[in-house]
């Protein structure tokens, strides 16, 4: 299978702390890959690394056959990498629609001269098409009826959905979800699983998912990677991971029966 993303012996150090140690990892076309591991294992650090917030101390990150170690975050968005945040990060004083609009490539690239000198009718036509697309993205996560609401006043679960819609509006090919189900109830979680699967299959967006809910991880993942203390300790199908003695001993410990 095609490799979309490939990490080779990637390490990230914060002063003396090694948050990631020589991690090898690849993401394949069309799959849902889950990253699991105990608190502080380095999962979010891995996302920050992929999206360009941190740079690797050593190792290489390859995306679609080019090394992107030093690429700025906004460039990576242009190349098709988008994410959601563990602690939701929205533009709280802007509306649901505006939160999605700002990332839309055409809205984002609207030139200053076009904005000032184009005729109203022309601008309206162009912008209505962009709004239409953004509303469609919002509809994918079920927020199309809340266009005017300020993002900060949405309930927590919907804020997470809005983050997903925003990522979609960048036109991403790879979507990184950092604990998207945190704070959701069982019903919402089930809905979310359906949506993620749909996005993956119908819109062929590759997914990397960080999640603590093991039931959800086992259900949704094509493949799982386990991190512990910044090291990759296991990799494989949900079945393999459930039976991996390394995982059971080193990571799951007492929780083993839960699986």
């Amino acid at each position, binding site marked *: 299978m095609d490799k979309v993303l490939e990490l080779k012996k990637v390490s990230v150090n914060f002063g003396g702390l090694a948050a990631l140690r020589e991690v090898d990892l690849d993401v394949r076309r069309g799959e849902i890959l889950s990253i699991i591991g105990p608190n502080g294992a380095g999962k979010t650090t891995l996302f920050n690394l992929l*999206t*360009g*917030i941190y740079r690797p101390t050593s190792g290489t990150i390859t995306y679609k056959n080019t090394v992107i170690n030093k690429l*700025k*975050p*906004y460039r990576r*968005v*242009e190349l098709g990498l*988008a*994410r959601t945040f563990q602690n939701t*990060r929205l*533009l*709280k*004083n*802007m*509306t649901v*629609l*505006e939160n999605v*609009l*700002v*990332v839309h*490539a*055409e*809205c*984002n*690239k*609207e*030139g*200053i001269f076009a*904005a*000032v000198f184009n005729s109203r009718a022309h*601008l*309206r036509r162009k*912008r*209505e098409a*962009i*709004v239409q697309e953004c*509303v469609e993205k919002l509809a994918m996560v079920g927020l*199309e*009826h809340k*266009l*005017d609401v*300020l993002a900060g006043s949405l309930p927590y679960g919907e804020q997470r959905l809005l983050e997903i819609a*925003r990522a979609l509006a*960048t036109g991403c090919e790879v979507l990184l979800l950092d604990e998207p189900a945190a704070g959701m109830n069982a019903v919402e979680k089930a809905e979310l699983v359906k949506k993620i699967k749909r996005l993956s299959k119908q819109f062929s967006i590759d997914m990397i998912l960080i999640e603590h809910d093991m039931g959800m991880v086992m259900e949704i993942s094509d493949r799982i990677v386990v991190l512990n203390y910044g090291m990759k300790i296991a990799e494989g199908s949900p079945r393999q991971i459930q039976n991996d003695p390394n995982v059971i001993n080193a990571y799951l410990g007492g929780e083993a029966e839960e699986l």
Partner: protein
Amino acid sequence: MRKKTAMIAVAALSIVVPVALQQVNDYLLHVVIMIGIFSVLSLSLNVIIGYAGQFALGHAAFYGIGAYAAALLMLHFDLSFWIALPASAVIAGLAGFLLGSPVIRLKGDYLGIVTLGFGEIVRLIFVGWVDVTRGPMGLPGIPAPSLFGFTFSGKLEFYYLILLLVLVTYFVINRLVHSGVGLSLLAIREDETLAQSIGIRPNKYKLLAFTVGGFFAGAAGAFWASYISYVSPDAFRYLDSVNILAMVILGGAASLPGSILGAVILVAAPEILRYVSDYRMILLGLAIVLMMIFKPSGFWGEKHRRRNFYGNVRKGESK
């Protein structure tokens, strides 16, 4: 519909009232013209502070650069006012771009201090570069604009000219902030790190804000030079920067009508308070402090921001 009627009323008033004012007192008209100049200044600073969220404290420098550029172009190169004004605006815009390039890396207090320093340096250049600026003596004899052989001599002509400048500034900035550019600026103001990681280039937009802000402040400066026919470093002190800043804050950051309201209040108030001359700075300071405490978003602030302006989505629309 009501809005349209109101706009026509305002338009009619702004054309007719000055004529009446002039009958009463030339000085009143001067105050109105100053309100116009400061409206352009606060509108342009609002792009930098209110929209891009960059707390810059040296706006009078761009005003000064525009004024000196216009004065020198008209005095030494015999350029007509109509060419000198846009040229000065471009020069001040360039200054905004050049100042922006290093300071967009700074945040918060540091940005404030560096831009404050920039303002002082520019003023010191006006004072010290005697060969060109004649230092503290200033540059007198700047010609008034003329059009088809008709020279602007009275205050009323200058009034209509500044009205036009305010309208153009308002139109351009209004278009700019209600566009994809404006959305990106707001996003950067709200959360710059986030903006970066969702694909917005903060540096590009911050530079743009400084350039646009400098441009219109420069235009205001050029108008001032020609209106007063004399420029000296005194009009561009850091107190003037603070004054423009206060207009933006008082009126409401990220609100264009607010910027004009701020200019009206802060130009008119000192004139009204003239009889308490010694205390008027104190009173103004007090007013601003009270404002910060009780109405930090200004008289016409964030709450009035038009939501979902992009693409004319109707309120409550849900397909």
